[in-house]
């Protein structure tokens, strides 16, 4: 069991923009019904959206020891079918409106606009006893690679977050991120732990309904990726009157120092908190945070390790960096380091492969006071609107779809460049990648070249491509 929901019995747990709600008591009831319908510990694909049914189902699964795979309800049908074939879950938990895609599957339980369908797959894969849930590492390309999180991972990370953000049952966070995204999920997990009321909406920052709900229900906090804070600036956020708001958190990539400073100063002036944080799905969610009272002084830093965790840097010789201002790979140690990955059904039986230590793939430095600054990345991936997108995977997808085309993807966060050798397919490549990743096409630029620069061994020279960034 992850949450002790009984403790907060009559308090409101979830409230949506249409006035529907669930108390903690009702969550417990829902959990009993779902557990009875499912019957035993098994794998469930949960097609998520930010609605009461979706969240209540997730909470029920976790507390009953049923293992959900959290996927977006908007996931492309073809990608979903592939994943189903690879993992053969016993049930699907999905919005009632999507039942028609799965004719022939029998409904076992329906509540709050969601429905539990029995898939009818035969042989199930065995599940490691501590396995709690599976999450994708990004929005992303429908790769069958999931992060395996344990009950201890989720519980310890939620406790840590509740401690450093000083959460209590008076909190009213409003959803701004998908619940199947590790950061969005960590907000749910940590707030349910303290008996808070979560304001649930599928609407976005650019919609009138979001702000009406925010004001009517007096939201106290929200989280955002760098792009969220750029949008808020454009929305003239600094002039908005939001008296109930007392905490803003940021993660999912590095905010520019200029914006970090703007929000830190705004928060200081209003007597609220702006907390920059650092994390990864592989560490459940959070690893570091910059305490709000250091937001201005240590602007640009992602802070210090969360309670219960430790950071260290490893240089290229494998030695621990002892002195400030030297770059090394950031290594994290803590109870929230996840078990490992799963890439196929058999992997669900695997135990803990990391033993509490995670090489983050991020290059960092610390200053004389021990505050960490991200300096770059070891691996080839970009963060697009907070979603991790693996560039090698993108190359493979394009080559798989467009026979004989040579291509290379590269770029900077929020701007990916797709280098291809055939002008005729330029638009098609962009459309294809946007649809596969589910990201706005504005993030992708196609550049046509005679040939992709390579070394004698045939390896792409990504450095050469940089001069073509526009």
């Amino acid at each position, binding site marked *: 069991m992850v949450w002790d929901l009984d403790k907060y019995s009559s308090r409101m747990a979830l409230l949506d923009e249409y006035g529907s709600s669930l108390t903690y008591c009702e969550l417990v009831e829902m959990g009993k019904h779902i557990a009875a319908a499912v019957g035993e510990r098994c794998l469930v694909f949960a097609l998520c959206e930010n609605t009461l049914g979706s969240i209540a189902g997730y909470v029920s699964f976790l507390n009953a020891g049923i293992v959900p795979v959290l996927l977006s309800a908007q996931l492309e049908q073809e990608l979903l079918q592939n994943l189903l074939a690879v993992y053969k879950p016993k049930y699907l938990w999905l919005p009632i409106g999507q039942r028609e895609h799965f004719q022939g599957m029998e409904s076992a339980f329906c509540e709050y606009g969601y429905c539990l369908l029995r898939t009818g797959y035969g042989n199930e894969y065995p599940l490691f006893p501590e396995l709690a849930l599976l999450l994708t590492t990004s929005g992303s390309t429908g790769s069958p690679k999931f992060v395996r999180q344990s009950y201890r991972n989720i519980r310890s990370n939620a406790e840590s977050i509740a401690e450093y953000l000083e959460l209590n049952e008076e909190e009213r966070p409003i959803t701004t991120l998908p619940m199947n995204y590790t950061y969005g999920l960590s907000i749910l997990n940590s707030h349910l732990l303290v008996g808070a009321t979560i304001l649930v909406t599928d609407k976005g920052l650019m919609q009138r309904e979001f702000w009406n709900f925010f004001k009517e229900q007096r939201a106290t906090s929200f989280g955002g990726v760098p792009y969220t804070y*750029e949008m808020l600036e*454009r*929305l*003239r956020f600094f002039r*908005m009157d939001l008296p109930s708001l007392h905490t803003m958190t940021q993660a999912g990539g590095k905010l520019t120092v200029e914006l970090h400073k703007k929000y830190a100063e705004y928060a200081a002036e209003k007597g609220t908190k702006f907390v920059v944080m650092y994390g990864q799905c592989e560490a459940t969610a959070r690893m570091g945070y910059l305490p709000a009272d250091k937001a201005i002084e240590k602007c640009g830093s992602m802070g210090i390790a969360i309670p219960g965790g430790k950071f260290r840097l490893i240089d290229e010789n494998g030695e621990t960096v002892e002195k400030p201002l030297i770059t090394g790979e950031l290594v994290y140690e803590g109870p929230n380091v996840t078990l490992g990955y799963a890439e196929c059904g058999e992997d669900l039986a695997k135990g803990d492969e990391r033993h509490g230590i995670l090489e983050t793939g991020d290059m960092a430095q610390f200053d004389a006071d021990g505050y960490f600054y991200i300096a770059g990345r070891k691996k080839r991936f970009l963060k697009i609107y907070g979603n991790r997108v693996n560039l090698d995977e993108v190359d493979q997808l394009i080559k798989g779809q467009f026979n004989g085309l040579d291509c290379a993807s590269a770029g900077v966060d929020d701007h990916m460049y797709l280098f291809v050798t055939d002008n005729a397919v330029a638009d098609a490549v962009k459309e294809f990648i946007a649809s596969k990743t589910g990201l*706005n096409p*504005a993030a992708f630029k196609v550049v046509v070249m005679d040939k992709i620069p390579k070394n004698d061994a045939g390896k792409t020279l990504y450095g050469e491509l940089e001069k073509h960034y526009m």
Partner: protein
Amino acid sequence: MNNLEKYLAVFTETFGVDEERAKGLEYQAIQEWDSVGHMGLIAALEDTFDIMMDTDDIIDFSSFEKGKEILEGHYGIVF
């Protein structure tokens, strides 16, 4: 170009759709017009018409037609 042509051009360029499609467009009707696309659209409109839009107008801007009303009513742009 008159104002309507300019307005149309912002839509067709931002979202990569033809004029016919642009005219009936609503927020979230196509993948391109999500929150990210919305920000791009507003930026392009502000540049094109040399205006600075208010928060309320940005979040009320829910369709091609509604946008025209907002620009006409609050920013004196005549179509």
